[in-house]
């Protein structure tokens, strides 16, 4: 097994005492595309913002995040700044608010080129234009002097990607990169990310609440729920045979074209971080939950090569018909 590019170990993040991430272990290998899936508030974005030390000061972060083996959570600020944008780039959900409204596109891209690649003057101009061409921006040269409000959401996201690529990072974190965009633009942006990743040999972490998007674009997937990873594995197998009832629920909640069945929603809501259930966090919403699920939070264990699962009832067969109806008692389901 190759050594991971970034390895997160035992990451805990809390805001004012309320846990947002609870003991996350995650590794990203060079050139790999890793998907991180979960509902809003499941901690998927917070995990990576914490890794890059971009959370506000009131957040308490514990654990270890190593890049090429050295812990970046304890690095001096100066060295951390070289990693941000230089080794690890990040793009955000809503490109229109993630770009500075009063600075030109040229200025916002140039900053990265000057900082991480020591470029200046005409070199910067040429490279900024090349980057905009690379991300498929029409009329790249003319667009350099535009401002974010003069462009569409999709174009702004292309600028964000160009900006993140400007530092030639080894890893790009894409935090819900298409959520704020039109459906037609979403596919274009995802294709662009794929193409760039292949061309640049860069690793990609795709954060999304959409399991379908992740399954299509990633090699490996980790599903998060209430601040923990509940299941991880190769995208194709996880999508075909989810083992965790929550992962199963996410897949059942996806609409399909040929399916006349109604969508199956997961009953209930995500638990309040200040008032976590004692056992499995998904327990209260889980149709398969048994008495053991209420006692302890199940650890993430290897259940097959490359597959890990955090479920006390890991021997469950979830392959049957869609069945996350809240009324079925656990006993009936198991029998």
């Amino acid at each position, binding site marked *: 097994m190759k050594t991971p590019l970034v390895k997160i170990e035992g990451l805990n993040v809390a805001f004012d005492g309320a846990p947002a991430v609870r003991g996350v272990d995650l590794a990203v290998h060079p050139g790999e595309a890793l998907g991180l899936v979960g509902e809003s508030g499941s901690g998927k974005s917070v995990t990576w913002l914490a890794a890059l030390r971009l959370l506000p000061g009131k957040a308490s972060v514990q654990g270890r995040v190593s890049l090429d083996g050295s812990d970046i959570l304890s690095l001096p600020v100066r060295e951390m*700044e070289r990693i941000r944008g230089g080794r690890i780039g990040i793009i955000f959900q809503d490109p229109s608010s993630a770009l500075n*409204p009063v600075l030109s596109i040229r200025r916002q891209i140039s900053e990265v080129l000057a900082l991480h690649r020591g470029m200046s003057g005409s070199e910067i101009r040429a490279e900024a234009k090349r980057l905009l061409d690379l991300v498929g921006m029409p009329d790249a040269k003319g667009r350099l002097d535009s401002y974010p409000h003069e462009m569409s959401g999709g174009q702004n996201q292309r600028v964000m990607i160009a*900006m993140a690529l400007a530092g030639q990072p080894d890893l790009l974190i894409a935090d819900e990169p298409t959520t704020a965009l039109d459906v037609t633009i979403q596919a274009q942006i995802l294709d662009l990310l794929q193409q760039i990743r292949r061309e640049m040999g860069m690793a990609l972490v795709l954060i999304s609440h959409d399991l379908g998007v992740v399954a299509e674009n990633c090699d490996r997937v980790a599903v998060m729920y209430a601040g923990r990873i509940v299941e991880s594995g190769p995208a194709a197998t996880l999508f075909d045979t989810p083992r965790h009832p929550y992962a199963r629920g996410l897949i059942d909640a996806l609409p399909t074209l040929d399916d006349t069945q109604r969508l199956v929603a997961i009953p209930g809501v995500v638990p309040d971080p200040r008032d976590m259930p004692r056992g499995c966090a998904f327990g209260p919403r889980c149709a398969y939950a048994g008495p053991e699920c209420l006692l302890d939070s199940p650890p993430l264990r290897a259940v097959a090569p490359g597959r890990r699962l955090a479920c006390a009832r890991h021997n469950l067969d979830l392959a049957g018909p869609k069945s996350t109806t809240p009324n079925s008692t656990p006993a009936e389901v198991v029998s």
Partner: protein
Amino acid sequence: MIRYILTRFLRAFITIVLVVTFAFVVLRLSGDPATIILGPEAPPEAIAAFRKSWGLDQPVLVQYIQYFAAIFQGDLGMSMRDGRPALELVMERIPATLALTLPALMLKLAMGVPAGVYAALHQGTAFDRAVMVAAVMGFAVPSFVLALGLVLVFAVNLGWLPSGGRDTIWHAILPIVTLGLGGAAALARFTRSAMLEVLGQHYIRTASSKGLAWAVVVRSHALPNAAIPTVTLIGFLVGSLIAGAIVVESVFSWPGVGRLMVVAVANRDLAVVQCILLLVATTMVTSNLIVDFLYGALDPRLRHGARANA
């Protein structure tokens, strides 16, 4: 763009006309200058003669039209008290007022903006809380109370500075400080909240995620955005350079426009009051006009006449 500029100018002009009209009407309703200037004992014939000579016996509408006709010929009327042109009287006083308000403006900017920015960057610290307390006090304490407090401490108790008059440069210090502190407090509070708002925006996180040092993020990404709302308040402060010192000039017996205004109102010296109000309105409207054009320079979203339809 030309349409945008013309619209702004037209709007500014209408504002000035409205202010002058309002002042004109209110002054005509607020008592007869003849009885005040000649005294209550004056014989009726003298009063009638006075009113006739100043045109006060005409219908208000006629007076109004005559007043505007004169303004457009550069005639702002004569003072009823000493018969000199009102504009001349006011112009004489402007240097004295600016001698207070200009340094006070510098003081406001030099104290208020850095204090607000620093407080926002260190939110929740002792300095931030101190700035907030000072800012609330600056709002809550009327300038005459602050003025009297400063006089009590520095003139009466310590005897370091004179308490009033305009003989030496030392006489200007207490009025300048009084004016400056109040404005600095307001500006600090405003700058702080503008800065806090900007620091919470996503593009600040983006700037950090690019690897920029925090100082660069603040200077290149936060300050240009926070400047936009702050400029509005600064424009207002500039606009009040002429009329912002009425109370302070009275407390410190400073012979500026403010004191002239107080005396002229008490005497119903119509032309002088109207002349001052016209001047004040013009300064305020002009500085607002400058602010409007500055917005375009500071904020690309407002360029190319984007606001013309607003």
